[in-house]
C-alpha cells in the first residue's frame, strides 16, 4: 500500500509505474506485497546501513584509518580472523566427517545425532558461552583435566577457538550433507571398476563434487565466526591485546561513547563479510563454469 502512495508522491510519474515494473502475471497483491517489502526492507535494512555509511563518511578516510590502526584494534582484528580461520579448518574436517557418517553409515542413535547437529543454531549463544566457560574454567569439569597438563583453555585464545567451533558447527555439516546424499553412486562404482582404492576415490571423485558446497559452508561459517559475540565473551577473558575479539571492541568503544570509532570498526567488519561473500560467489561461479564445461 505504501508503495502505491509513494508512486503518487513521485513527481512527473502518473500512476502505472508500478504495473510497468512488474512484467508478467495475473495474480493480485503485487502492490500490497511490494509495499510491505519496500517498507520493511527500507526501515530495517537499507536505512540502518545507509546511516552507518553516512556516519563513517563524516569521519573521513583518515579518521577511519586511525581507528583501524590503533594497536588494540589491530590485535583484535588479527585475533578474530585467525581464530575464525582455525575454527573454519577444524569444522571443515569434522563437519565433513559428521556429514559423511550421517549419510553413509547406519548406527544406533543416528537420528539423535542428526537432530543435535542443529543445536548450536537453536541454543542462545549466551547459554553456550556460560556453559563452555564453566566447563573449561581451570576448576571446571573439563578444565581441571587440562589444568593437570598446564593447559588453560578458558580465558585464552584456545577458548575463543573452542566457542567458535561449537557455535558455527552446523554450517558445514548442513552444506555438505545434502550434496553427499544426492551424489550418484555410479561415480564411485566407475572409480572402483577402474581400480581406484577408497582413498583415491574420495580424493579424486567425491571431494571435487563436495567442494562447492564445502567452500560455501566454510565461507558462511567464517563470516559468522568473525562476528560472533555472545558465546565468545564469556570464555575469552577479554584481555586487551591478547584475547579481545573484534565485536567486543565495538561494545567497549560504545561504552566510552566513541560512536565514530565504533562505527569505523563496524564498517571494517562489514567489509570483511562483504569480501567473504564476494569470494564465495566468485568461487561458486568459477566452479559451476568448470562443471558446466565438463
Amino acid at each position, binding site marked *: 500500500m505504501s508503495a502505491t502512495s509513494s508512486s503518487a508522491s513521485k513527481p512527473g510519474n502518473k500512476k502505472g509505474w508500478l504495473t510497468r515494473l512488474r512484467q508478467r502475471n495475473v495474480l493480485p497483491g503485487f502492490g500490497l506485497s511490494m509495499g510491505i517489502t519496500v517498507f520493511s526492507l527500507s526501515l*530495517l535494512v537499507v536505512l540502518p546501513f545507509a546511516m552507518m555509511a553516512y556516519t563513517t563518511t563524516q569521519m573521513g578516510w583518515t579518521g577511519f584509518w586511525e581507528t583501524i590502526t590503533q594497536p588494540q584494534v589491530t590485535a583484535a582484528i588479527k585475533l578474530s580472523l585467525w581464530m575464525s580461520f582455525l575454527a573454519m579448518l577444524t569444522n571443515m574436517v569434522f563437519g565433513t566427517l559428521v556429514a559423511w557418517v550421517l*549419510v553413509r553409515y547406519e548406527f544406533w542413535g543416528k537420528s539423535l545425532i542428526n537432530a543435535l547437529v542443529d543445536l548450536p543454531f537453536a541454543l542462545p549463544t549466551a547459554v553456550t558461552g556460560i556453559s563452555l566457560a564453566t566447563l573449561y574454567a581451570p576448576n571446571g569439569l573439563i578444565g581441571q583435566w587440562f589444568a593437570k597438563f598446564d593447559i588453560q583453555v578458558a580465558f585464552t585464545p584456545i577458548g575463543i577457538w573452542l566457542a567458535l567451533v561449537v557455535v558455527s558447527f552446523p554450517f558445514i555439516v548442513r552444506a555438505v550433507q545434502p550434496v553427499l546424499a544426492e551424489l550418484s553412486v555410479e561415480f564411485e562404482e566407475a572409480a572402483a571398476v577402474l581400480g581406484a582404492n577408497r582413498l583415491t576415490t574420495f580424493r579424486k571423485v567425491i571431494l571435487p563434487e563436495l567442494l562447492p558446497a564445502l567452500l560455501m559452508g566454510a565461507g558462511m561459517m567464517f563470516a559468522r565466526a568473525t562476528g560472533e559475540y555472545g558465546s565468545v565473551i564469556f570464555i575469552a577473558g577479554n584481555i586487551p591485546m591478547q584475547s579481545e575479539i573484534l565485536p567486543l571492541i565495538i561494545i567497549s568503544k560504545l561504552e566510552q561513547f566513541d560512536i565514530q570509532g565504533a562505527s569505523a570498526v563496524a564498517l571494517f567488519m*562489514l567489509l570483511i563479510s562483504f569480501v567473504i561473500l564476494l569470494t564465495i560467489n566468485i568461487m561458486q561461479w568459477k566452479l559451476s563454469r568448470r562443471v558446466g564445461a565438463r
Partner: protein
Amino acid sequence: MQISNSYDYQSNAATKDTPWIRRTFIAIAVLFMVVMLVIPLLAVFYEAFKNGWQLYIASLVDPEALQAIKLTLITAGIVLPINMVMGIAIAWLVTRYQFKGKQLVTTLLDLPFSVSPVVAGLMFVLLFGLNSTIGGWLESMGFQVIYAVPGIILATLFVTFPFVARELIPLMQTQGDSEEQAALTLGATGWQTFWHVTLPNIKWALLYGLILTNARAMGEFGAVSVVSGHIRGETNTMPLLVEIAYNDYNFTAAFALSSILAALALVTLLIQQVMTKIQERKFAKSERLASAPELPVSANATAVTESTSADSTGKV
C-alpha cells in the same frame, strides 16, 4: 532438499568402507558431537539444579528474572506477527512476480544473515540514538527507542528478518502458482485465494519459519545487548540477565534462566525433527504415486486431488 536417503551404501562393494574405518569414523563423529554439543547442553541443566530445586525456583521467581522473562515474551509476541506478515509478503512478491529489482530484494533479504549481531545493534544506535536526528526528534516527542523496549524489538526484528521468507521462498517456488491461478479463474477474490489456497499450502513451512524466528528472538544476545542499555528491572531480556547474573557470580540464577532457554532450544529441535519426518513422508508418498506402474495415467491426477482436497475446503 534431501539430507539423507535410504540407499544402503554398505552393501555396495564400490561404496563400502572397511569396518575399522567405519567404526573409527562413527566413533570420532559421535565423540566430537558429545564433547562439543552434548556435554555443554547437559552442563546447563546440571549447574542449574546443582544446588537444589528450591534455589532453582527461587532464582526464577526473583522479580528481576520475572521481568526479564516477561520482556522476552513481549518481544517475541511482537516480533513474530510482524515477521510473519513481512515474510509472507516478501515470499509472495519474489515467487509470484517477475519484476525489475527482484535480485536486489533477495540480496537485501540475506544481508542480516551476514552481519554481526553487534554491528546490527550499533546500526540502530546510530539511527535512533539520542545523538541522531531521528532519535533526537523522537525523544522530543517523548518516545525513546534506544535503551528502551522499541530498540530491543527493532534489533530483534533485524536479526530474525530473513527466517520466515527464507523458509517460504523455496517451497512457494516449487509449488508454483497454478493452484492460485485456478482459484482465480473459478472466481475467487485475491484474499479468498490467499486464505483457502496459498495459506494451507505453506502452513507447515510458515510454522517452521516462525519457530526458528521465535528461538532466535528469545535467545538473541549481541544485537539486543547493544541497544538495551542493561537497565536493571527494565530493559533486560533473559539472555541479557544470564550475562548479568553470571558476571555477578550468581551462577545458579544464570544457569536457571539458561535452562529455560535450553529447554526452548530442545523443543525447537524436536519440532524441527517432526516437520522433517512429515515432509519426508509426503515426499515418499508423492514419489510412490508418481512412479506407480499400474496407474501411469491417473497417478498425477491422484496426487493433485489428494493435495487439494486435503488442504482447501471447497468453498473456493
